[in-house]
């Protein structure tokens, strides 16, 4: 019998990956291509949408060729994408009006301060489920409309289209200027600040608040369901799922029950907890976001704790300080000492996201003494990721009242045993890693495969999930770290105070 395969495209911050999965959720083929990071000014981060589209086409064509000889048919395509990254393009020519504004870009800081000061600013948190922050796509779109010559005029005339990365790719995959489908999935739409998080429709008041013309917005669709046919691929296959990358990881980790949570440790760290069909209003600094929606079913929600700098701090030890040659060596260095030597690193490189949301915060190393060595610094850098996880978990538990039975983890940092044990101890919760580390791609594949019947239901997906490792908290360590936690909290307060104007 021929197997039925699903293609996933993971359009990430640093690269685009195309992966083919079989019905057991196992990787059959993978191709990857990095794209250029453009830093035109301090705080500005841009990607070239044409380069990303070319990489998508190329890697997808390559994996489809890789599996052409295999005993299986690729029956659907699912897309997961870097979230909040904003593209605006000309619907007639398919040319972007400029480079994409990446989620790490902080150019909207001033605009955000201005918008937040308006008397009607409270409607954003109330309707969109999250406070105004430069992290989301809406302010970036507004920035483009304000700064790209004639952009507003052309947008109002219906000549320009807006999209996050999945929208841009789906439009191109389905024909581009020749009949391309202009759609977004509900998880990505929930990251714009333009959507009413309850009705899952664009909200007229929010559009007015941000001064964004409705004609340029894509149609909002469920995450699981056919969106169009990818005629740009050969063979043409239905695009049957799309999710923001963190929601895709939640899906790939089969966190389908309220309370289920996962944390992805890559450049940043992103903890999402499923809250079911109920939207939980955060009072403690988490984000209320859409987890996923199956066509014809109610929307599922999640609370999210987004941390901008996790693996990026390790990268900084490597590239900025030259303390290590490769990221995994940070563990070797950290193991040269027994503790952090009283040292805390707060990696607020461009402010702090959840649960603090303090754009002005700046990084610091607290507790330096002559005793501290590079080993202590390495340990403190890893611990920073663990402490930040505790910050967001505490906020989330306060909001949802759902306590965490276990944390499912994935991402590049999960091969670091020292860090994973620290996370288990600092949360006093078991930490579990699944057999398929590529949970983002897997989630996109699951969404698409579910839509076309490769898998019958989410229960079938749950049977594919297996544990590959577990870190169990050590009670004495957990107690000691709880006692130490206020020191970390103080370091965070200092980093906020340091950046205050």
């Amino acid at each position: 019998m021929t197997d039925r395969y699903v293609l996933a495209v993971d359009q990430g911050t640093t690269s685009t990956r195309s992966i083919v999965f079989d019905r057991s959720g196992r990787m059959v083929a993978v191709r990857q291509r990095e794209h250029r990071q453009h830093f035109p000014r301090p705080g500005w981060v841009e990607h070239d949408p044409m380069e990303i589209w070319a990489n998508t086409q190329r890697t997808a064509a390559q994996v489809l060729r890789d599996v052409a000889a295999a005993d299986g048919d690729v029956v659907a395509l699912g897309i997961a994408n870097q979230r909040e990254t904003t593209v605006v393009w000309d619907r007639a020519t398919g040319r972007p009006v400029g480079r994409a504004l990446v989620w790490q870009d902080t150019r909207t800081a001033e605009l955000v301060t201005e918008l937040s000061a308006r008397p009607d600013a409270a409607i954003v948190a109330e309707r969109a489920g999250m406070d105004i922050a430069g992290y989301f796509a809406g302010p970036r779109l507004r920035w483009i409309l304000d700064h790209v010559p004639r952009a507003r005029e052309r947008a109002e005339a219906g000549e320009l289209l807006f999209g996050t990365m999945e929208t841009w790719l789906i439009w191109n995959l389905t024909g581009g200027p020749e009949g391309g489908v202009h759609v977004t999935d509900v998880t990505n739409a929930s990251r714009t600040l333009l959507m009413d998080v309850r009705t899952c429709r664009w909200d007229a008041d929010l559009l007015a608040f941000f001064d964004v013309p409705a004609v340029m917005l894509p149609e909002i669709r469920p995450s699981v369901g056919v969106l169009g046919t990818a005629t740009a691929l050969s063979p043409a296959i239905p695009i049957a799922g799309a999710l923001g990358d963190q929601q895709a990881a939640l899906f790939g980790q089969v966190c389908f029950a309220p309370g289920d949570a996962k944390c992805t440790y890559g450049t940043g760290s992103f903890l999402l907890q499923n809250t079911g069909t109920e939207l939980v209003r955060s009072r403690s600094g988490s984000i209320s976001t859409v987890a996923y929606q199956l066509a014809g079913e109610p929307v599922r929600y999640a609370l999210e704790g987004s941390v901008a700098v996790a693996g990026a701090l390790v990268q900084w030890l490597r590239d900025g300080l030259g303390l290590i040659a490769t990221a995994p060596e940070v563990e070797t260095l950290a193991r040269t000492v027994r503790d952090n030597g009283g040292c805390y690193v707060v990696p607020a490189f461009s402010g702090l996201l959840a649960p603090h949301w303090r754009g002005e915060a700046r990084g610091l190393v607290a507790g330096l003494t002559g005793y501290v060595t590079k080993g202590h610094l390495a340990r403190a850098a890893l611990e920073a990721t663990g402490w930040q996880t505790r910050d967001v978990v505490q906020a989330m538990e306060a909001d949802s009242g759902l306590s965490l039975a276990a944390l499912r983890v994935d991402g590049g940092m999960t091969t670091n045993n020292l860090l994973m044990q620290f996370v288990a101890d600092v949360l006093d919760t078991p930490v579990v890693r699944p057999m398929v580390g590529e949970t983002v791609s897997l989630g996109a594949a699951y969404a698409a495969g579910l839509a076309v019947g490769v898998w019958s239901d989410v229960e079938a997906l749950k049977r594919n999930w297996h544990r590959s490792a577990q870190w169990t908290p050590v009670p004495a360590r957990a107690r000691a770290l709880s006692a130490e936690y206020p020191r970390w909290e103080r370091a965070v307060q200092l980093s906020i105070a340091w950046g205050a104007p």
Partner: protein
Amino acid sequence: MPGTVQSIERAAAILQVVAGSGGTLGVTEIAGAVGLAKTTTHSLLRTLLAVGFVDQDRSTGRYSLGAGLLRLGAGHLDVNELRARASNWADALASRSGQAVRLATLAGDHVDVVHHVFRPDDSVQVLDVGTRLPAATTALGKVLLASAAGRHGGGTGVGDVAVDRVELAEVRARGWATGRVGPDLGVSGLAAPVRGSTGLVVAALGISGPTSVVLDGRGAPRPALLTMVLDAAQAVSRELGHSG
């Protein structure tokens, strides 16, 4: 450069030339490249040959970098780096074989478990990264001892480990080993070597599971599992830059 030893400087210059040439130069060309007399160059090359830092092609007389030098570099492969690079392939092996997977390096008469992937049946298992297993009886250990013995020449010099030298020679020749995992005879292991960019064995990758699943009635590995283990070990070797 005050305080430097001239002959070491010269030897270093020679090694740089030899490394850059890819094994195409004889003594005359090397002497020319480093600006030394041919006799001086020759005696330096003879010392480098004796310590294994260069090799000489018998028929052409040309020099290339020696295995001794490459081994120095291979020793620097960080175990955490090794785990990170092996992780996807180890997961895939566990998932395909349905067995637990371990990656190990040699530490005297023991092996250190560098990476461990649970058997994918969601039963209670304990992560044993950092624990030591006996080298002489485990599949992982035999693979590593066999390659260590090979490096020291023909099955001698593997320390005080009591091993079956005939078996090690066999393991080396066929490229895999079977063995026990702990005191329990009901559990067996099957492992293959992982090679670094220099071609030297840097680790062993293997599965372990119920003896009746891993081995047939005569103690030979099940062919399907053997293929999976060999493929995975080769994939990790490629990931580390081994081209063979």
